């Protein structure tokens, strides 16, 4: 079967989608007619009522096919007057690929570039076009690589081997939205019903009755049944059109390589998965570091920090760019595995065009303008744009968060809140054991009294640990105890502002222990030595700390080294009296 035939088949299937609904409705109507003509009275009425109930979701399905619009990601729309250089680039590439330029450009906060159309009639007719351009992509790609990515996107609209395939691909996008709608509506119904039943259960409780169990099994059933039907059909379509869609991707890659050069296209393809992974990492480890304490990086830095991290972690990125994922994301993903795409592009004959990757300058924590050579420089005022975009992509709730003074401040505040709030298993066990608010002092006293291992039995432990006895049990419990005790002691240090966290774009944050302060406390009776011990380097204090933890949790525990590290009691006056 040729490519044209395959595409044709897909288009027929696409048309079949609304036909499916019509067929269902016709069947129901037919049943009604039969019932009314052949049966009399109640039985006929019953059948008519049932058929109406069944028709409702079908009609809803038909309406839904018409309604959905690809949901627009939050972003900032930029006009030609705002960003003349970006628009010029976009127009130039549209010309080069032989398709029409988009009607608007929307900058978003995702690692993605997409030319979207709001097509009419399930993608059978074209509609207005918008270019969605992720700012993280602008940050991570060079201008040449961005051109390659855009050329690829336009390549989808020029039609690779057949005009029909553009249609097929648009249909795929549209169908995915439909299925999404169906399942999320069904889920919403279940969630609403659950909330209603839970309220009812709460009411029952207040009246002193036994609450009924929340049961949402029957809810959203008609919806889910319809969704299942349409999903099954949509999958059939997706499967039938998969080869067409993949051929489209390869063709788009070829277009990109033709316009921007083989090596640039390959480097852009390699950079994409690496950037996605890096951005996920950035969001999890840096940008959202202060979310538990309702704290955000300084304005503009929520997006802007990404460039700094990319610069500092260039080595890791290089690794990611060489090791490409070989498996497709899902069986219905229209994109072939990126490794395969890179292989095909790199097999093309050399065209002599130079590679243009981002050249980054490591510019520290408070460096001025980030990376040079990045596509971000196309923007008139990157800093202002980042700040404006940030206001749009953050949720209302997040916008109300406090802003940190700088990244270091963000780290300090987040870590100290994390330590103080950390409800470790040991704290819980201690609270359960003593029935008092857990404090480090109580814990150390308890260890001194020889109750550590009784306490350990209150920890959440594995089956094997619980079954073990004596020394083996203590070995099982020790790692849990140690992590928890470490957190508790660090929290104590942190509460007295003795800890210093070292922020780094290249490494995980490291903690600097209050070595000097602790030794001051330890050697109060020998004040002449303080100056001497102060001069000793940091790692030493870490060893002392670890050894003190070990001693406090030994088979025969000794808390003295740990107590020596802790600052003297904050209320010496009270103790003296």
């Amino acid at each position, binding site marked *: 079967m040729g490519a044209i035939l395959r595409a044709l088949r897909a288009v027929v299937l696409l048309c079949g989608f609304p036909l499916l609904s019509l067929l269902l409705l016709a069947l129901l109507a037919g049943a009604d007619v*039969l019932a009314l003509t052949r049966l009399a009275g109640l039985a006929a009425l019953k059948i008519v009522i049932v058929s109406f109930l069944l028709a409702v979701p079908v009609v809803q399905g038909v309406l839904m096919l018409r309604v959905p619009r690809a949901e627009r990601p939050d972003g900032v729309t930029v006009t030609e007057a705002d960003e003349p250089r970006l628009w010029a680039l976009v127009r130039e590439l549209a010309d080069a690929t032989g398709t029409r330029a988009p009607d608007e450009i929307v900058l978003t906060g995702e690692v993605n570039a997409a030319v979207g159309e709001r097509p009419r009639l399930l993608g059978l007719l074209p509609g207005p076009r918008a270019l969605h351009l992720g700012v993280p992509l602008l940050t991570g790609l060079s201008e040449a690589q961005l051109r390659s990515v855009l050329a690829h996107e336009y390549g989808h609209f020029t039609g690779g081997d057949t005009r029909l395939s553009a249609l097929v691909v648009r249909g795929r996008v549209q169908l995915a939205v439909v299925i999404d709608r169906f399942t999320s509506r069904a889920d919403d119904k279940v969630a609403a019903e659950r909330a209603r039943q839970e309220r009812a259960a709460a009411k029952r409780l207040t009246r002193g009755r036994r609450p009924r169990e929340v049961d949402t099994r029957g809810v959203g059933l008609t919806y889910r049944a319809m969704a299942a039907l349409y999903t099954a059909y949509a999958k059939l379509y997706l499967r039938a059109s998969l080869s067409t869609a993949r051929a489209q991707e390869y063709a788009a890659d070829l277009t990109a390589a033709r316009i921007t050069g083989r090596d640039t296209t390959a480097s852009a393809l390699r950079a994409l998965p690496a950037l996605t992974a890096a951005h996920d990492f950035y969001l999890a480890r840096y940008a959202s570091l202060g979310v538990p304490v309702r704290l955000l990086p300084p304005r503009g830095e929520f997006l802007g920090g990404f460039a700094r991290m990319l610069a500092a972690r260039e080595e890791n990125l290089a690794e990611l760019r060489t090791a490409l994922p070989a498996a497709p994301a899902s069986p219905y993903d229209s994109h072939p595995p990126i490794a395969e795409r890179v292989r095909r592009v790199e097999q093309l004959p050399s065209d002599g065009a130079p590679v243009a990757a981002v050249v980054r300058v490591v510019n520290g924590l408070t460096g001025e303008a980030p990376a040079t050579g990045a596509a971000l420089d196309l923007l008139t005022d990157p800093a202002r744009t980042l700040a404006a975009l940030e206001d749009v992509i953050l949720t209302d709730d997040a916008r109300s968060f406090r802003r940190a003074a700088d990244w270091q401040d963000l780290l300090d505040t987040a870590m100290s809140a994390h330590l103080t709030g950390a409800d470790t298993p040991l704290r819980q066990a201690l609270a359960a054991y003593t029935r008092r608010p857990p404090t480090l002092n109580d814990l150390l006293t308890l260890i001194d009294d020889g109750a550590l291992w009784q306490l350990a039995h209150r920890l959440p432990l594995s089956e*094997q640990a619980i079954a073990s006895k004596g020394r*083996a049990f203590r070995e099982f419990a020790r790692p849990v105890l140690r992590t928890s005790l470490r957190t508790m002691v660090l929290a104590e240090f942190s509460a007295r502002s003795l800890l210093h966290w070292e922020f780094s774009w290249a490494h995980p944050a490291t903690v600097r222990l209050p070595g000097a302060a602790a030794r001051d406390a330890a050697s109060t009776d020998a004040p002449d030595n303080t100056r001497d011990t102060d001069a000793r380097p940091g790692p030493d204090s870490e060893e002392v700390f670890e050894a003190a933890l070990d001693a406090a949790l030994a088979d025969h525990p000794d808390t003295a080294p740990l107590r020596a590290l802790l600052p003297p009691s904050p209320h010496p006056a009270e103790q003296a009296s």
Partner: protein
Amino acid sequence: MTILLWILGILAVPVLLFGLWLAGVFLKEFFSPSPDDDDDADDGVGAAQAAAAPGLLPSDRQDTAYAGPLPDDWRAALDAVRADDWRPAADLLAAIGRDWEGRAAFSYALSQLAVREDDWLLAWEAERADDPDAALVRARSTVGLAWEIRGARRATYTTGEQFEGFHRTLRTAREQVARAAALHPDDPTPYIAETWIALGLGYPNSAMDKLWSEITARAPHHFEAHFAALQYWCAKWSGSERLATAFAERAAAQAPPGSLLTAFPLIAHFEHDESADTEADSTPEMIARVDAALVDAAAADPAHPRLPELRHLLAFYLSLQGREEAALEQFRLVDGHVNALPWRYRVDRAGYYCQVRDATVVAARATHGTPPA
């Protein structure tokens, strides 16, 4: 309406078929129940009769902690340790002196007592700092603790937490082994203890060869040294069937009679035998191995601490080879203690031992008509 009936009819067909099938199965089971555990019950009766054979103990009276009876002074010393008195044990270990077989066996028995609680050992160490004997027991007990944490199951059934604790404890043990070796440079026992660490930490073969040369320089034909090293060379640890068999054959061939190293070709076979029948155990090669082991056992010092272990293996393989009379002779010599290969790998080692032993008794009766006296 007829259309609806048609639809219902089509839907009903599979349901009807399923119902018919279910009824069929039910009736069949009702009139001719499938055989279940009747065969096992017969076995149970036979086993009960066999256990009545004179002089052989039932499974609940088998000692599952040792392979054979302990010498009186050993038992007394171990009992004292259980009562937190370490002095008799320390004196005995000192008296055993350079009898490396005895030192390895007794220090192992002692260290096992410290795996659960080690207060007596701490007292010993506190009173006699740098006592090489205490250092040896300490190192061996930490190795034992590591294996206790790991548990005896295969790697698939061992949790990450168990492995983590196992490896951490073994690394501690390695330091203690080094200390024990430094305190008593002539003693091969610390290196034997390290072989169990080599298993757990997966030493490379080259490191194991180096360790082995330390051992053989001090005790060339040591039973436990070979036992541990053979485990290392088995396919399930860091070797292969070929390496293990070659190691065992070489050891057996080079050892003087009475050193009991003829046990190892049997163990190498046992560790890699996956077959379900006894054909592989009755090859001329296996019969020759068993014969060699019989000669070796006869030549050994009757007080050799490892002799019962060889006898257990002999009893097992003689029985599998259909040499019931000879097997029963070995069974009688070791009856009462079952902590030895091949029984040791079963959860119910006493039950397994008695099952094989009693089957041997029954088979001997069948062959000779009369129960052996």
